[in-house]
Each structure stands twice: as C-alpha cells, then as structure tokens.
C-alpha cells in the first residue's frame, strides 16, 4: 500500500523547503540525534516501495505537532505520519508496543461487538450518574489503567470522580456508558484504520442512545479522536465536545463555579492533544489562575514539550529523557504541583519517577486539573 496522491497533496508534503525547523523543535530529535522528521518526510514522499516502512523511526514520532506549528510551508507532518503508519501496518509493519502489547490487546478486544463490559464498578453511591441526559462524560480507559498500572498507584479515576462530583454540584447527573469502548485514538495512530473505525462507530451508536448533546472529556486524546479523527474518517459526531478544562473555564467565567484562594504553587503541562491538536491552551490557565497563580514552565502553551510517548509505542530511553526534561522544567518553576489535563501524560510522567534518581531530583506531585478544581471549589 502506498500513500495516495491526495494524502500527499493534503498534507503539503511536497512543499518542504528543507529549512530544518522541524528538526530544531522536535523533542525526539533533541534527545535522539539520529531522528530526523525531514528525512522521514523525504522517504515518505518518495513513496516508491514499501521499503521505507521498515524504518523504526516512523513509529518513534510522537505526533505532537511541534513541527506542524513551526513549518513555514504548513506541512501537516503528524497527519502524514498517520497515513504512513496506516500504509506500513497494511504492509505488515508495526511499532514496538510497550507493556507487552497489553494495551493494544485491550483496544482490539473492545472492537468485539459481543463484548459486554462491566467498567463502571468504581462509581460509588456518592456519584450521581444517568443513563440518558444532556451531558455525557466520556470516561476513557482510566478504569483499565488503574488496574494495569497497579504498582504506580496512579488513581487516574480520581480525575473522573472529581469531574462527576463537580458536575453533580452543578446539578448535572452525567451519562456514563457501562460498555463504553476505547475511542480508537491509539489504534489509529498505530496504523490500524479498520479497527479504529469499528470503535468509532460502536461508540457513536452507543452515544446516540443516550440522547446526549454535549460530551465531556478528561482525556485529551479521546477528545482529539472525537473532534479530529472521527470526522476525518467520515463519521459525523454532530455533538458539542468539551474538554473538562474548557467546561470548567466556561463555568468559572459564567460565575457558576467560584474557587477558593490557594497558596499552592502550580505549574501546568499542556498535553499535545489539547494544546496543539485541539489548540486549547487558555481554558486550563483560566481554571488554574482562578484563585491561584500559575507558574509557567520554560516550554508552555503551543510550544509545550510532549510527555514523551504516544499510542503505547516505541517507549525507550529517548522517551525517558524527554520526560525527565519535562519533570525538570516543572520542578524548576518552584511549583509543588504539576497539573495535567490528560491521563496519558500523567502515566508517562509518573512512570519516569519510578527511577529513584529522577524522583529525588524532580519528584513533583502530579494532579489532574479536575482534581485540583474540586479541592478548591467552595
């Protein structure tokens, strides 16, 4: 399988001026000098054989869109990578799945229509949820993360629980789907377009039955799947999509939520999916600056450094160097808490802290933005 002409044109791939700005900002290139987005692009547009799919590096790209943001020719590099990976996977090439591919398997199992998940065990009596309603809270795979990363003591579900409590306080009893499927984000970025489509369709059909008008997300990846990837694959979502940070900012502005003043020193890590893929950098800052002062890291907003791994793939020492650098930047702000807006960022940065040396030097506490908000709500 080859890239289609349309894909090449659509991504402006032929417009490369070889200026090298992409390599200059690329976090992977910074820590792994062999890695060059530009040469990968050259290989891709040559598009003469499936040989270029053998290159390990096409799976190492974080698709964080740092290069997209600086490219003078407006090349959509991350989209190109997605197409290349799709072709590669169709030709039998794959990236190196971390954690023995357990996450990949979970996602694939979730494509099975006969599956009947039992994923809402964690919802206690203190949380009000509904089966139908205006607001749908898309949990994402947090219940699985908490089990699989048992030893990390992550409590990713704290962000979900906090979000639901906030919604409850605002009089909203959100819809939660007991058989919600993986959004498909990772499968697509792994090149598995077909199974991605199955997940997208299954989710959308399920959501239709809930009569929801707005979908809220704690996970930036899930939201970017719904907002960008589903329509690109031909699915019409047709609903209002909001990241929890956007929802919270909206409610704060409207005066529905007021937060206590806090002396906590907080810094914020922009997830690449929220900051660059969804271009939302302000909402989280509105939330965190309300009642407190945000201490910005050296690289922030649109220029934020990625968390080092995407789609559970090609995790290696380069990933760790990126993550260590990010934790270093966070610690250097003098903050006590690193606020995140994506569970993947949280997992990856926590995992890096398993190295005692890193933990001793940059062992900053990591919390989800909803958790912080709930703690401060009056």
């Amino acid at each position: 399988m080859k890239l289609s002409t349309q894909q090449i044109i659509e991504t402006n791939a032929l417009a490369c001026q070889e200026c090298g700005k992409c390599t200059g900002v690329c976090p992977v290139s910074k820590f792994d000098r062999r890695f060059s987005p530009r040469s990968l692009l050259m290989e891709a547009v040559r598009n003469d054989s499936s040989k270029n799919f053998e290159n390990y590096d096409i799976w190492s790209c974080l698709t964080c869109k740092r290069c997209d943001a600086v490219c003078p020719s407006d090349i959509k590099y991350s989209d190109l990578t997605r197409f290349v990976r799709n072709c590669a996977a169709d030709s039998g090439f794959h990236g190196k799945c971390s954690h023995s591919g357990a996450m990949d398997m979970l996602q694939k199992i979730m494509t099975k229509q006969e599956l009947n998940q039992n994923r809402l065990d964690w919802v206690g009596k203190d949380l009000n949820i509904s089966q139908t309603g205006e607001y749908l809270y898309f949990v994402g795979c947090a219940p699985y993360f908490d089990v699989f990363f048992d030893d990390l003591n992550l409590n990713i579900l704290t962000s979900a629980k906090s979000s639901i409590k906030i919604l409850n306080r605002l009089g909203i009893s959100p819809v939660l789907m007991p058989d919600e499927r993986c959004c498909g984000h990772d499968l697509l970025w792994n090149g598995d377009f077909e199974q991605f489509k199955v997940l997208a369709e299954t989710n959308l059909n399920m959501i239709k039955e809930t009569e929801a008008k707005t979908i809220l997300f704690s996970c930036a990846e899930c939201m970017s799947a719904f907002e960008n990837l589903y329509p690109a694959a031909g699915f019409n979502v047709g609903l209002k999509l909001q990241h929890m940070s956007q929802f919270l900012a909206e409610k704060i502005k409207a005066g529905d939520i007021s937060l206590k003043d806090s002396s906590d020193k907080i810094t914020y890590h922009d997830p690449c999916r929220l900051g660059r893929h969804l271009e939302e950098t302000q909402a989280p800052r509105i939330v965190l600056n309300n009642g407190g002062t945000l201490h910005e890291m050296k690289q922030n907003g649109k220029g934020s450094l990625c968390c080092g791994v995407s789609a559970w793939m090609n995790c290696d020492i380069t990933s760790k160097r990126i993550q260590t650098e990010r934790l270093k930047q966070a610690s250097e702000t003098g903050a006590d808490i690193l606020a995140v807006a994506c569970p993947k960022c949280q997992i990856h940065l926590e995992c890096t802290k398993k190295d005692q040396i890193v933990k001793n030097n940059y062992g900053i506490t990591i919390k989800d933005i909803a958790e912080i908000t709930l703690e401060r709500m009056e």
Partner: protein
Amino acid sequence: MKVMDKNKHGNNSNLSFKNAIAANGAFLSLGSKGENSYPIGAVDPSPCMVACPAGVNVKSYVSLISAGKFHEALMIVREQNPFPGICGRICTHPCESFCNRNEIDEPVAIRQLKRFVADYEIEHPWSKSVRTPPARKEKVAIIGSGPAGLTAAHDLALKGYNVTVFEAMPEPGGMLITGIPSYRLPRNILKVEIDYIRSLGVKIKTNTRISGKNALQSLQKKYDAIFMAVGAHKGKKLNIPGEDKYEGFWDALTFLRSVNRGNDIELDDKIIVIGGGNVALDVARTAIRQEAVQKVAPNIAQALDVVKTAVRFGAREVHLVCLESLAEMPASEDEIEEALEENIQIHPSLGPKRIIGRNGHVAGLETVDCLSVFDKNGRFNPMFAENSEKFMEAGTVIMAIGQVPDLDFLEPSEGIEISPGNTIKVDRETLATAIPGIFAGGDAVTGPNTVIDAIAQGHLASGSIESYLNGNQLQQSPLPSTPFETEIKIELSSRTKIKRLNIPRKKMEDRKNRFEEVEFGFDETQAVAEANRCLRCGTCSECFICVPECDKNLTFLSLAAGKNDILLRLTGGIHVPESSPVMLNSDKTKPLSFAAGQINTLFPYILEEYCRGCSDCVNVCGYDALSLMPVNGTSISTINLDLCRQCGTCVAVCSTGALKSPYYTQENIFNIIDDVNPVKPNIIVFTCKWNGSGLVESDLSEINTGKTGVKIIDLMCTGQIQSSFILRALNQGIDGVLVMGCEDKHCHFDFGTAQAAKIMEITFRMGKLLGLKAQQIAYHTTADGNKQDFIDSVNGFIKNLFKKNKTASGSPTVTVA
C-alpha cells in the same frame, strides 16, 4: 548490547564460582565484537570427589540414587571405577571422611550406596549401552589381574585397544580373590565385575605366569605396551626370634590364600594374630603421619581379616596384638566393631618380642608394652616400656604385618629397576619404567595399598599407555593423587541433622563358622533415604542426565588441564576465543575444540537504548542479579551474571523490551498464540516448563478434552506470564486460558509463584472489567511434576468453562488446585 563485567560492580562475595578459567584466560564474549567479555567461572568439585583417589563423581551418583535413577547412578560410578560392587563392600571410603556432613552429624554412607547400585544391577539387569570406540590395532599386555591391572584393561578396552591380561593364578582378581575373605567380598560379585570387563573385549589368560629368561622382552615383541601390575604377594618378616621356626606359625597371606582356595587348615583353639602397626616399618621414611596412617590401613584390615577368618575356622579364642592404641588404630570403626562383636580380643599397645616354641610347635608369644608408635615428628619410632614382658599362650601365631611385591620374575637383564623397598621403580607421575613401553603400577609400585588406590593407578597407567601409543608426551596424571583443597563453600549451620542409616549386618549367632557375607545391602527405600542426606555441595550434581534431554541445546564446558578438570554448567552457545583452553563437551564422550563465534547465550542482556531505569526488573528478580546504575542523571539497569539464574522473569516484566533473552521473547509467545487455530472450542494452557513439561505430548490423551482443543504453551517459569498473553489469546477467539504454575515451595526459581499470582490478580481484574466470564481465565498451582494434578486441573477447567447455564459474569477467583 552491553553486559557489565562482573568485576566492575556488584557484590560477589557469596559466590561459589571460581575464577579458575579466568586465570587461564578464557572469557565468554557476549558482545558482537568481543568487547564485553565475561570470565568463565568454574564450580569447584565437591569434597567427596576430590577425596576419591579414582576421582569418582560421588555427589553425582548419590544424587541420581536419591532421584531413583539407580542404573544411571551405576554408570556414573563405572566411568571412574569399574568395580562398584567390590568397592561398595571393601573400599576404605576416603570420600566419607571428607563428606561435609561430618560437620553436622555423620557422613553419608557412600560406600554402602555404591554397593546398592551394583547389587541393584544384578537383581535388575538392563542392557548396558557400552560405547564401542573405533578399534585400534595396538596390543597391550597386562601382567596381573588385580584391581590395578583390570582397571587399566577396562580403560584401554573402552578406547578400542586390544588388551590381554596374564594371570598366574587359576582365577583372576589378584589380591581381591587371594587376600580378601569371601564373607567380606562374595565371589559372585567379583565374578560379575570381572565378567563385565571381559564383556568389553578384554582377554584374561589365567594360569599363565610370566617368568623365565627374558620373559618381558619376548612379551614386548608381541605387544606394543606392557603394564606390570603384579601386586604384593610375599609375606613380610618381622625378624624377631622364633619367627618361621615352629609349626603353627603362618604368614597372613599364605593363611588367607589357603583358606580362600578352600584348603583345610588345622588351627589351634587359641590363636594370636600379630598385626597392624608393625607394617609401618615400611613407611618409616614417610614424614607425614597422616600418610603413614593411610598406608597402614589396609594392613590392619588384613589383620582383622585373618582374625575373623580364624574364628570361622573354629578357633575359640583369637587375640589380635598390635602396636597402636585403640584410638590410633587405623582400621575403620565398622571393622573394629564387627571384630569386637565376634568376640575377638584386641590387645592394643603391645609389641611382639619373640615367638616361643615347644617341641617344634608354637607355644605362645612374648610381648612388651608399647608406649608410643610415632615420635613427635610423626615418624614411626615405637617406644617400649622396660621390663614389661608378658607371655601369651597360643598354639597358632599368624603374622599379618603386610607384604612386599614378589619380583623374582624380573631378571636383572630385563633392565627394570627395583627400589630398596623391593618395589618396581617408576616415574610416579606417569608409571613409566626405565624401558619405553613398559609401565608398572598398583601394589607392585606403591607397596600394599587399598583397592581404590589400585584403581587410581590403573587409570594413571591407561592414560600413560594411551599417550605412549599415540606417540605423545606422557602427561601428568589428570587425577589428583591426594585430596586437594576444594573451595566449595556451603551453608552448614541451618542444616538439619538426619541420622545416618545403620549398615545392616548379619546377627552374631548366624555369623561364625560361615563364609557368607556379613553385611547386608540397603533396600531401595533405604538407599534413597540415605542418598537424600547428601548436601549436594556446589549446586549442580553434574550427573548430565539433562544433556541428552535438553531441547534448548544447553552445552557444557570443561576445563582442559590439571586438577580443575571438571565439567561445569554453562548454557547456550557461547562465544569463546579459539585459542582458549576451554573445550565443548556436549555429549560428554568427546571433547571438541570450541569454534569461535558461536550463537547466543541464555543470559539475558540489556539494550541500553530502551532501558528506562524503571526498576521493574530489579524489583522482580529474587536473586539480586539486577541493579540500577546511575548514568548521566538517570538510572540504567545492569545484570550481574554471576547471580542470574536465567529464569527470564525480568525479560517478561520489562515494559519497553530493553531486556532480552535469547530463548524467551514475547514475539515467540505471540507467534505460538497466533498459530493456535481458533476453531471453537479451544483453550490455551500456559505452564511452567519444569512442572508441566514432559507430559504435554504423551499425556495429552489423559486430558478429557472431548471436542476441545488444548494448546499447552511452556514458559521457563510461570513468573513469565503476562496479561497481554492472556488478552491476546482471548482476542484471538480462544475460549479460555488456564495458567498452571507451581506451588510456592515447588517453584524452581523461588519467586515465580508470587510473580505469577500478582500478574494473574491484575489479569483477573482486567477480565472482570471486560465482562469476561469468570471461568474463562484461571490460575492453578500444583506440586512439582504432579502429573495427575496437572491433568485434573486441565479437565476441571474445561468442564467448568463449558458448563451450561453459567453465563452470568462474576468475579474470577484464584483457585488453587
């Protein structure tokens, strides 16, 4: 790839590895360019093995007995000792003296165990697969069919040489048949073991004395090499007044030989046997007392033989007179105990002064009290008390003070040198005489010695003869002639005391006047129980039964030279420089030179570019083989190969694939899972290689599968199980996954059970989230190798999985079979 040199880090203080090979310059190279070399460690031999003059791997056969592998055990004995039945009865068992169990309670009854396997073969014959080497045209003559001669014949026959043994007496066996009474060594046992040597193609010509003018020279014309193992068959004199002067005086050998040939002998009711320490005159030149004591041992044994034989011949009162005190007596406790049981009176610390006769017949012995036998330098220098003369009345006096070789057949013209002690003079390292091609050994060279020493001499001779016939330089003995210090250290303080099994003996009232064997052997239960007392000093028992069975082609290396010529366990193909002294010994029959640049090793290694220093591997390893090393402000995992036992669990838990193992990869397991035909119904059973292995193919029929397909996937340890394997199988359409681990105490890798339980707990929780049926995933543990448990578990799992009307999802539980 980088594997850390063990010298660079880590604590090696508790290791049993020895850097012997490192000293010889042999290195394992794990890097592609040989840049990451690793010294090969040798495991020191166990003390029982170094104590054995013949170098029998005692630990190995004792281990095999404990495992119920009696024939295999016997084959191990035979490799170094062709006379297991004989030595199982009359060996002086130095191995037992060196046994580490001495520090705890009593040594393992090694001699008796050896007897057991020899007897077992007689009762349970099996077809021995004797190696048939390519035939050699060279002919070897051996003079004397005692243990030294026959051992050499055995060794040379196994190497394809044409061997003829010449024996002057009507029956082969030498001192074994003429000197040792049948109640200690039954003649059928002797016959079985000599027949075994005959079965290897050795010709034994009895009633053929080599004597006469130029006998050796004429023999040399027909044979390419000659080994003289004529023994020491001439009784020694004490040179005291009255010796050999009266009727009723015997020397021990003539006495025993007559008895053993069945001649009727007239004995007085009252008998005195002079034995023991006097023979030490022989070794007076030997400075070290220890060695002197060892040399005396066979003679005391012989004196006891004489005494006991006399009892069986109707003597009512037998007195044993010897120089040593009871504590000094170099006979084994068993033998003294046996003699005392038979009411033999032992008179220690007594020296014979003269034999008194009356009317041409022995009337008695005059003795003096002996104050001390050895001086403070350990030299033999008996001191007698003045005016302590006593008279002991007796009608028969037997002198049992030892023998010297009878070398009358050697004419001076033959050119064989004879030492002042009347033994054949040879180079002690090679047993070569002054004449090329003629070798000598055994008692004829050493003076009277033990059977096991004679066997050692036979090995030495065969080695030299082979070198000679191949035109090679005669080499030093590959076997240690004296026990050497072994550096094996084992933990003794926590060991429990287990009583040594008493060697069963015939009751006293059944014993006298009979020439039947006094000792009984162990039965199977007793043998296994006694063998289980062995401490297995130094981990591997070197029995090598794993070698032909190993499907991973593990190979073994041996060191080529000197006392450290022992086999050691090393796994996988190994990159060894061609010039190294290390040889591959994969089938244990022919050492090969190890070609450079070989496949992989079984040790895991770390791809540094993937290692995140997350410490998952460090936490999971129960052997402390992994540790984190600081590198540029972060950590990287490193492996101490000395501590690694290659279970692969670290490789399984590595989330980035930085840890690799040549025999275990996730991709392999994935491929096996993917290849399972998902036609329903079908289940996958992951099992511990050690526990479930071996019954997977042959016993599958016992699994009541019905229509269900069962795929059994071996893991080195169930500690390697991963949630992803199970998820992958279920995603593939497999109906259920059963993980069969080992009970905690049966885990071969100490922590595998705990690790498997942890992973399974996570998998169960994930299964529950996914809404899988509780019975789709199960984790059972069984005792090591418990086949029935294994089959029952699989049957139970299948039954439960396809039980009707059970579709509700519930919480899976850990069921322990």
